[in-house]
């Protein structure tokens, strides 16, 4: 077979032109549109699938209940390619669609940071799941967070370890990315507020192949309780195994990734009996249970926080627009802020002026691979 240069290049040219022709002609119905920025490609593509599923379940529920302002709701998705520039492009593409009345942003804080200027310019509500505490302090009135921020996770980990487990020799292990670093700061801050100074704080870069030096540092410091912020499950899996192999058996309270489905699969017994803070826990409320049943019906796997927040986000947007009685962004914003005690899958939403909807976390325990709800810790501030 001989592919000549000419054939190849003209084929390439045709291939380049075709999608451009396909694009554009899209029917415009009498629906209310939400825009969703979600990773469809790149490293977070799998999480993106979950996020879309959560939104879709809520969408079906909203539409079955009569939709929004009497119209059916539709979600327009755009791929952020798991990158920041990708997120900016995806959002700006959605923003050009005037029919879209509200957005569901990203679970990744850096992406929300990247999109924030465009969100401000577009001036329509954007629900998001990134947990970097600074996001709601940017003075951007259109950002609404559907997960508790990391300052709460740090406080909850500290409170659970200090008050429930009554342990004081803390070690902290964290990823040096934005999530891990902010989490570490929140945890260390909460501990210090209670008069406890962590004996060792160890950062690591994502995709480390080996944690022996980290584990040995923990061992040498003689910790009796471990707090952790891991971003990627494979890091968590390797670390957990080496931790146990090298004989560190201190109780361990970790950030949400410690109880997610992939981590459980990868780490297996190494994570048994650990505690995790979870913004979503199936047994924490009837609403959470109902979402879990619907999700399992659709996806055949257990839900986690990747989908629960988008589920809440769509429900909240629908509720706020219905409450406002119109899609005017300012009215929707005010309606959103006035919603009190909204029971979502993640917990009870009471938006404060910053746009933080949730103010507490669940603590769950891994009992031989099963995640068991332990306690909900809520803060008033």
């Amino acid at each position, binding site marked *: 077979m001989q592919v000549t240069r000419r054939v190849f290049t003209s084929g390439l040219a045709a291939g380049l032109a075709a*999608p451009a022709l396909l694009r554009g002609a899209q029917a415009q119905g009498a629906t209310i549109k939400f825009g969703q920025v979600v990773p469809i490609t790149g490293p977070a593509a799998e999480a993106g699938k979950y996020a879309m599923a959560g939104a879709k379940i809520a969408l079906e529920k909203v539409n079955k209940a009569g939709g929004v302002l009497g119209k059916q709701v539709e979600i327009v998705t755009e791929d952020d390619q798991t990158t920041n520039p990708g997120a900016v492009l995806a959002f700006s*593409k959605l923003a050009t669609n005037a029919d879209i009345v509200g957005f569901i942003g990203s679970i990744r804080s850096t992406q929300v940071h990247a999109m924030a*200027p465009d969100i401000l310019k577009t001036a329509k509500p954007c629900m998001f799941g990134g947990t970097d505490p600074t996001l709601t302090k940017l003075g951007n009135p259109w950002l609404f967070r559907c997960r508790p921020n990391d300052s709460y996770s740090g406080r909850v980990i500290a409170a659970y370890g200090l008050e429930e487990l009554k342990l004081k020799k803390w070690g902290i292990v964290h990823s040096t*990315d*934005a999530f891990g670093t902010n989490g570490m700061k929140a945890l260390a801050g909460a501990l210090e507020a209670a008069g406890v100074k962590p004996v060792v704080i160890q950062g690591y*870069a994502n995709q480390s192949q080996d944690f022996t030096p980290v584990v040995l540092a923990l061992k040498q410091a003689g910790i009796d309780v471990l707090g952790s912020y891991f971003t990627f499950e494979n890091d968590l899996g390797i670390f957990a195994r080496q931790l146990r192999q090298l004989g560190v058996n201190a109780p361990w309270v970790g950030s949400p990734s410690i109880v997610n489905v992939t981590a459980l699969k990868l780490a297996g017994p190494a994570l048994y009996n650990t505690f995790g803070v979870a913004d979503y826990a199936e047994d924490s409320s009837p609403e959470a249970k109902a979402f879990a049943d619907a999700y399992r019906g659709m996806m055949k796997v257990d839900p986690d926080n990747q989908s629960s927040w988008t589920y809440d986000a769509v429900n909240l947007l629908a509720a706020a627009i219905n409450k406002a009685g119109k899609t005017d962004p300012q009215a929707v914003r005010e309606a959103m802020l006035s919603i009190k005690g909204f029971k979502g899958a993640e917990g009870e939403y009471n938006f404060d002026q910053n746009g933080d909807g949730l103010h507490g976390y669940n603590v769950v325990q891994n009992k031989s691979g099963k995640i068991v709800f332990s306690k909900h810790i809520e803060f008033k501030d």
Partner: protein
Amino acid sequence: MTSITDVSPAARRTAPLGLLAYVALAAVAVFFAATHSFDAYITNILMQAATYSVAVMGLTVVLGLCGQINLAQAAFFGLGAYAVGLGTVDYGLNFWVCIGLGLVTVLAAGAFLGASTIRLGGHYLAMVTISFQQIVTLVMINWIPVTHGPDGVSGISRPGLFTTAQAYLAFCVTVLAVVGYLVWRLPSSPLGRAMRAVRDNELAASVAGIDVQRTKVTAFAICALLGGLGGALFAGGFAYVSPDQFSFAESIVFLTMVLLGGVASPIGAVVGTGLLILIPEWLRFLKSVPGLYLAIYGLAVILIVLFMPDGIWGWISQFTRRFGSRSGVAPVRAEATALELRGSSGHAPEVLRVEGLAKHFGGLKAVDGVSFSVKRGSVHALIGPNGSGKTTTLNVLSGIYAPTAGSITLDGLDVTNLPPHRRTIAGLGRTFQNIRLFRTMTAVENVIIGAEHPGNPVQKAHHALDARARAALAFVGLGDRADELVTSFSYGHQRLIEIARALAGNPTLLLLDEPAAGLNSTEKLELTALLKRIAAKGLTILIIDHDMTLVSDVAEHITVLNFGRRIADGDPVSVLNHPDVVTAYLGSEPDAPY
């Protein structure tokens, strides 16, 4: 990287016209960017395309012109972006000051990186740039007090005049147009010619008087500089920078952009950048399967390398050249001025003095204590059977090999430890047994490079160099074909171009390495005549050859080598009848090579 000539000679002569068209086109683009109101999505895409294009043009220079690889362009892009981001946000500096600081930083980093490792070239350079990329990324992520770590820097402001996205876009397009113009014109400047020469043939470039290392480092620094400039503009455009935007993967994207568009021209850079920003947007219908379109992207890279080595723009320009204006501009016949050779200013009777020269490769003594001298104005031949060490001697003389022992004095100057290009500046000219021309250039461009080195007492204005090159070509009998690509010449004529290239540099001593090799008998006669004409001009020649007819015809003095040692030295008649020489050539010794 193989590539076609970037600027054809016809295009060069029509440069004023091209320039006019370019300025008009650029003005339209800037005007369009400044006045047409795009929606936010299109503005973002255009902004990304414009700023990336600037960085990709850096790769046009380093990869396309100079043939060096850089897998860290995203790091340079990131350094520029962070300079603007951190400078304006954390330190409250003026936007323009930040751009300046950013450029200084990347220039320093690029020059350092290039200077420390570029001598290794090839794979090593690829590796070092990857390492640099990784280290920059790690520092951006982990040096939190300064870089804000993975959070990145947000709220970057734009300069006063260009606060709106529209105005800023117009500004970026203007910068792109200016950079594009410079990169477009670079190949026909002395620096650009030097880069192309290095890309085409490093050895020939250094022997033609080009400082190869400095040329490469300059190309690398320019590449880094444009990377930083693109990044600085990017930071202002998107108001937010974070480490993951400047990762190794992005460096690969930059590389693919330049390859796809074509490395030979800044237009290729813009085409490639535009396409690789738009293709992922267009291919979103493939998004239902994660990874699919990146897989196609990877496949496209392989297919482009296999089938479209000159990129899309290279392919288009080839196409238009084939069907376009072959008839176009008639070659302007330059006045065939007579070639002047005025290399030597010295008065010593010996132009070259070689004493106790030795070159050992491990245990092999290729040259073993050879001494001889070449008289001013003479034609001197160095002969010997295969493996006798004569080509090694020549390579040591021209600085390609460092000698193990001994000294070389050229026209009174000790050149023993000088690199090749410095010897050329000192008055050495040479040709190669295996012809080493700059294959993507025309005959006259090849010869101009030979004329361009610092030691040459010729005016450095382009028209003077051009005139000298044409005179040299006319001298060897190829004056009317000066504007043809060297690859269109016969083997024998290519050899003549090589000689012209050496002559154009006004050498004090001309080294000819087996000039008769591969020539047919007519060509040999022409060559003999040419050598006599050169000698008649008083130029000293050292010739190495097997061809006894040629040697005995032109040489006044012969040195014979065998097994790395001098076995005879003197006038042709006595040397050729020397018993050792006869033995060596008739191969009566049992262990004579071949």
